[in-house]
């Protein structure tokens, strides 16, 4: 009899717990869902901003405009042939030549290959005269 009582109370407690936690869970889900909606709206807004800003960026980086700005503010010019060369054209300093294993070794095939330009604009800052 008493065993039965105990079990009944136990089950009642379990049912109560289950009911409460289900309710609690549903409430939490609704909250998280609201939060998700809010974040999604924020993402949308940010994406819109990004779309507008990157369009603006593309507009501001029109080559013709950059060219004008370059002429007005910078002393840079497009890369010329004189600025490009291969590694074997680089002279070693006389002091280094004696003991340096690098200088005495025959030039590797990679070193003799002409220097390739990565992007054009990067080397534009090197003035023809600066290389001597």
């Amino acid at each position, binding site marked *: 009899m008493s065993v039965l009582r105990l079990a009944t109370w136990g089950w009642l407690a*379990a049912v109560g717990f*289950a009911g409460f*936690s*289900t309710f*609690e*869970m549903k409430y939490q889900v609704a909250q998280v869902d609201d939060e998700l909606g809010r974040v*999604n709206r924020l*993402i*949308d807004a940010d994406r*819109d901003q990004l*779309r*507008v800003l*990157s*369009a*603006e*960026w*593309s*507009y501001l*980086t*029109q*080559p*013709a405009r950059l*060219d004008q700005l370059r002429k007005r503010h910078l002393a840079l010019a*497009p*890369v*010329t*042939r004189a600025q*490009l060369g*291969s590694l074997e054209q680089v002279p070693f300093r006389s002091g280094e030549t004696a003991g340096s294993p690098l200088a005495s070794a025959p030039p590797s095939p990679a070193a003799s290959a*002409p*220097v*390739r*330009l*990565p*992007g*054009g604009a990067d*080397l534009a800052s090197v003035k023809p005269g600066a290389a001597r």
Partner: protein
Amino acid sequence: MKPALNLDENPCRPRHFKPAPCGALPVEGPEKELLETSRMRLVLTGVLFALAFALVGFRLVDLTVLKGGDTKLGHAHVRPHTEATRADILDRNGVLLARTLESEALVAYPKLVDDAAAAARKLVTVLPDLNQQDVRAKLSSGRKYVRLKRQLTPEQQFAVNNLGIPGIKFETAGFRVYPKGALTSAVVGYIDSADNKGLAGIERGLDDELKTADDPVELSLDTRLQYILTEEIQAQIAAFNAQGGAGIIADANTGEIVALASLPSFDPSDMSGVNEQALFNRATLGTYEMGSVFKIFTTAMALDEHVTTLAGSYDATNPIHIGRFTIHDDHAKRRWLSVPEIFIYSSNIGSAKMAVDAGADRQRDFLGRLGLLAEPKVEIQEIGRPEWPSAWHLVNTMTIAFGHGISVSPLQMVTAVSAVVNGGVLHRATFLKYAEDYRPAGVRVLSRQTSEDMRRLLRLVVERGTGKFAAAPGYLVGGKTGTAEKVDGRGYARKELLSSFVGVFPINEPRYVIMVSIDQPHANAKSMGEATGGWVAAPAVSRIVQRMAPIVGIPPVDEDSPEIRRALLVDFAPSLGRKIAAD
């Protein structure tokens, strides 16, 4: 079953109660078995239910007490497509060329507006740039729907919303922006923003794809090269006071168009006051008699069909009289010319004779194979139909040999020239970017040997012939000049020229074919009274090559190095027994 005999032994038994007609449990027999099975089934079902409930219970405990559970990310939030949705257009390096932005438009349903005058007064307080009379007129017009203002800022939208005027609504509308403006309009085109419909260029050619695609459309164009090409053509138009110009830079090995210019051009974001001339795509829709650049095909045909060899020669002493035509040379040498000489001095007489040797059928077949006799199939629809004689007489064979009597578009020219120099494989022209390592198959149209011979000849034109101004120090440019007299009514107008140059770079291992055409250039003092392709278009190609080489990563070379000399050597005039190389 045994009858229950002693039912009435219990005196307290209610009168209406009858015990179940079963007695003590059977201890054996089929009844017992039946009972056992039933019990087993009961127990099994019970266990199953218990397990199921336990599972639910555990999950509940897990979620509430232990706060467990893995939080997997759901699908990324994607906005649904709308009427105004249109994919971005990018260049080959991801530079934005066209994009649809969304904004709120202020609209009104006048029938729902109670007091038009008051509504107009209120609206003007928050949107000062609206005209109060105007708004009032619109609101009392009795129409079903009016649009009051486009592109509201969020602040303005908030302010209008706060006014709380009935019948005033917002509507999301898309508008297309073209950040590079006129620079890329010849390829990108433009749309009618009211109904999101492409009207020209890629916007028209790929209209359906752009409306449905989630990902941006990547073009083969390179905005940097596009700028260089446009600027250099513009410079030549200005220098020679020309009517317009066109230019194309194509990848010789894939057919991708990396730059295409048609000048004058238009800005797709501001279509007001744009004239027909600016909308006309000279590089793809315009077909022209190209003049001497066609000798590339005549010579290639003669070499490929073994009609002659580089050692062959033709008599170019006297002009050819045929019917009412006289074919003469602009740079007349009045003697026998070797095949390389015919090419580099651009001899009409020699080319005509070469074509006659090959015959009309072979000429037509060869030009057809190079795609010069049919409309090219590309992603844009502004494509010109080539014009050529239906009856291919002897005189047509002769004039077509030097590029008269047949009209093709610059787009067809670069496609065909690419095939001639790249080893002999024709690739369909495309405005869409191929994957980095993708090499389209193409169709072989002439032999590898012919292609190599042609590269040597094209280099010779720049080194010693009519295309000297196309030379770019440090870079190996080859090419062919062309100066065509434009058709004027029935005859040719001697003063109205189309001056072109088709360049190939680097000529020893072609990567790019560059074509520049200047329409109706006027000779000036600096060009010593000349307005030919060699004077007008070739210098532009030289500057384009020098500017683009560092961008596309082609290193400068020593043009006089023995390897390069050997690779591009042509036995110049063997049959004539004299060394012209000395001059």
